[in-house]
């Protein structure tokens, strides 16, 4: 008899504990701390700390040095070779050593989160990584893209062939970064998620460890990049949009020719990014007559576009809000209450466990949707202005006597140097 009882003791204990569990779930401290007789002292757990913030300032110092080197190599030394070696260094340091998470592209979101939320204060290093490359863009063009950004560097070093993308396709695809940028800012400002970090394609390569989706995305981009150079920079990178805008107003910029352009047309095919603005050989002769009415029309279209996109984005706001986890959860719970579709997601399970009231959840949902509605028109205005201005720019024509890089789109990579027959005797 005794033996059979002993056999069931574990089950009995378990049953008692299960009952206990249901009664006193919130109270975890069930058993008193034992009184040890043998003078036992519990081991002290050694928690380890991260490398100090001082190192992040070293990263910032390396960034400034690398940017200065890139400016010097691109503008003064005019050395493509040097820029390639700088890319190798940046890839090794910011990519593989710092594992890609001290990143100017991602810092857009920290800035956005800090600007629109009072309970987040951004790390100083993130601000430095956001501002310094833009400052350099104002001084000397997109030298950050040329050889400092690890994402640009990995593509720069793997772009072996040059396939030109048709102008129209290029034009349409290069609108994607604008949309990506404004969505990333909106999602970060509403504390929904960090879109850019989530879809960073190369950080998995830097860590040599990634989910398979990131591996597929990253390697697809790299394979594409062999032929269509720098696909991430051109068609995805949201920081490139800021670099593009800032670089247009740069004090100095890389030039194709070291001296005077001879209009020999040799560099025309030299740029894989189609960022060389062609010179007009004889402006007096071959200039098509352009009507100023067209320019005025497109100029007037700018505010119209901004307004209409603002309206469109305002109406899209509730749909965009679905990226927020709380909104998603609230919709799931509402669906369960209204149409009986059972909420089975882990967030729903955690919500039921937390004992939060439904009203709280729905109030929060409305609050977040309200924030989306507040922010969405502004991103619509930005998109409309960008689109309108770029269309307006097509109608005005600048007479060029030289071949020069398009300051917005030129990555200052220096590929065009070797196409120019003009050499300086030094």
């Amino acid at each position, binding site marked *: 008899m005794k033996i059979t009882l002993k056999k069931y003791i574990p089950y009995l204990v378990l049953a008692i504990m299960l009952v206990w569990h249901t009664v006193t779930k919130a109270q975890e401290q*069930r058993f008193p701390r034992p009184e040890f007789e043998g003078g036992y002292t519990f081991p002290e757990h050694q928690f380890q700390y991260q490398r100090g913030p001082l190192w992040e300032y070293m990263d910032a110092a390396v960034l400034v040095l690398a940017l200065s080197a890139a400016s010097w190599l691109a503008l003064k030394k005019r050395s493509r070779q040097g820029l390639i070696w700088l890319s190798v260094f940046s890839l090794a340091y910011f990519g593989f050593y710092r594992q890609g998470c001290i990143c100017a592209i991602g810092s857009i979101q920290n800035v956005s989160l800090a600007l629109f939320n009072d309970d987040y204060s951004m790390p100083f290093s993130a601000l430095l990584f956001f501002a310094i490359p833009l400052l350099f863009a104002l001084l000397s063009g997109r030298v950050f893209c040329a050889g400092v950004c690890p994402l640009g560097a990995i593509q720069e070093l793997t772009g072996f062939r040059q396939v030109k993308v048709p102008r129209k396709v290029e034009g349409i695809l290069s609108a994607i970064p604008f949309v990506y940028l404004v969505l990333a800012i909106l999602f970060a400002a509403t504390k929904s998620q960090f879109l850019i970090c989530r879809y960073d394609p190369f950080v998995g390569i830097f860590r040599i460890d990634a989910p398979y989706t990131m591996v597929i995305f990253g390697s697809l981009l790299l394979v594409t990049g062999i032929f269509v150079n720098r696909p991430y920079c051109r068609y995805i990178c949201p920081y490139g949009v800021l670099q593009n805008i800032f670089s247009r107003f740069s004090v100095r910029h890389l030039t194709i020719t070291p001296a005077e352009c001879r209009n020999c047309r040799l560099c025309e095919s030299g740029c894989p990014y189609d960022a060389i603005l062609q010179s007009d050989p004889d402006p007096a002769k071959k200039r098509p007559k352009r009507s100023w009415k067209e320019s005025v029309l497109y100029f007037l279209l700018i505010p119209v576009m901004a307004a209409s996109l603002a309206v469109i984005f305002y109406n899209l706001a509730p749909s965009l809000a679905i990226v927020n986890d709380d909104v998603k959860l609230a919709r799931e719970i509402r669906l369960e209450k209204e149409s009986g579709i059972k909420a089975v997601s882990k967030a729903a399970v955690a919500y039921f466990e937390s004992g939060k009231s439904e009203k709280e959840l729905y109030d929060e949902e409305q609050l977040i949707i309200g924030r989306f509605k507040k922010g969405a028109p502004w991103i619509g205005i930005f998109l409309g202005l960008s689109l309108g201005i770029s269309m307006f720019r097509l109608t005005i024509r600048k007479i060029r006597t030289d071949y020069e890089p398009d300051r917005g789109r030129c990555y200052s990579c220096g590929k065009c140097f070797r196409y120019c027959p003009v050499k300086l005797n030094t």
Partner: protein
Amino acid sequence: MEKDGNRKGTRREFVRSAGKLIIAVPVLSLPVILAKKMDVKGYVWQIDPYKCTSCEQCKTACVMTPSAVKCTNAYPMCGYCDFCPGFLRQGAKKFSTAAEDQLCPTGAIKRIFVEEPYFEYSINEKLCDGCSKCVKGCADFGNGSLYLQIMHNLCVNCNQCAIARICPSDAVIRVPAEEPYLRKELKKEPKEPLPRHNLTQARFKNNRLPGS
């Protein structure tokens, strides 16, 4: 013609310099605005053990393999149970250290005899993959002394923590870098429930164990 071009040139130059000014003003003022909202020391990610529901996603969501999330034992809270619900599998026939009786799939929990009838349980962090099976066991049936923490010797401090993104109970939060661990045994009772999105964790701040 030349005169015309010249005039246009100056206008263009004016537009360009005006544009430069327009761009430069926000660029220079942005750091000033952000200076107020800046923390020199920065943040790291950490799991709030009181929000964690041990859903087992920390094991797979982390960008590191194995996860930077590890289990840790808050010894001042531990009951030193012989029947440790974090160590033994539920439904185990014997209370032995045999692999089939252990709850931990990687055998990362080490059991050392202290004195009758108490055992000390420690975590081998090299083996632990942060699956939180033991955490759930301990929280459900024991004292809740086993809890998960992001180990900062392993964490690469992503800008957006991949675990925080999918954590169903928003337990992964930003904490000040100088206090990177939210140690369960050091918790002060909160006077009122903290807001859902609080990013700095006041209730864990600046409290150390007596004598440590």
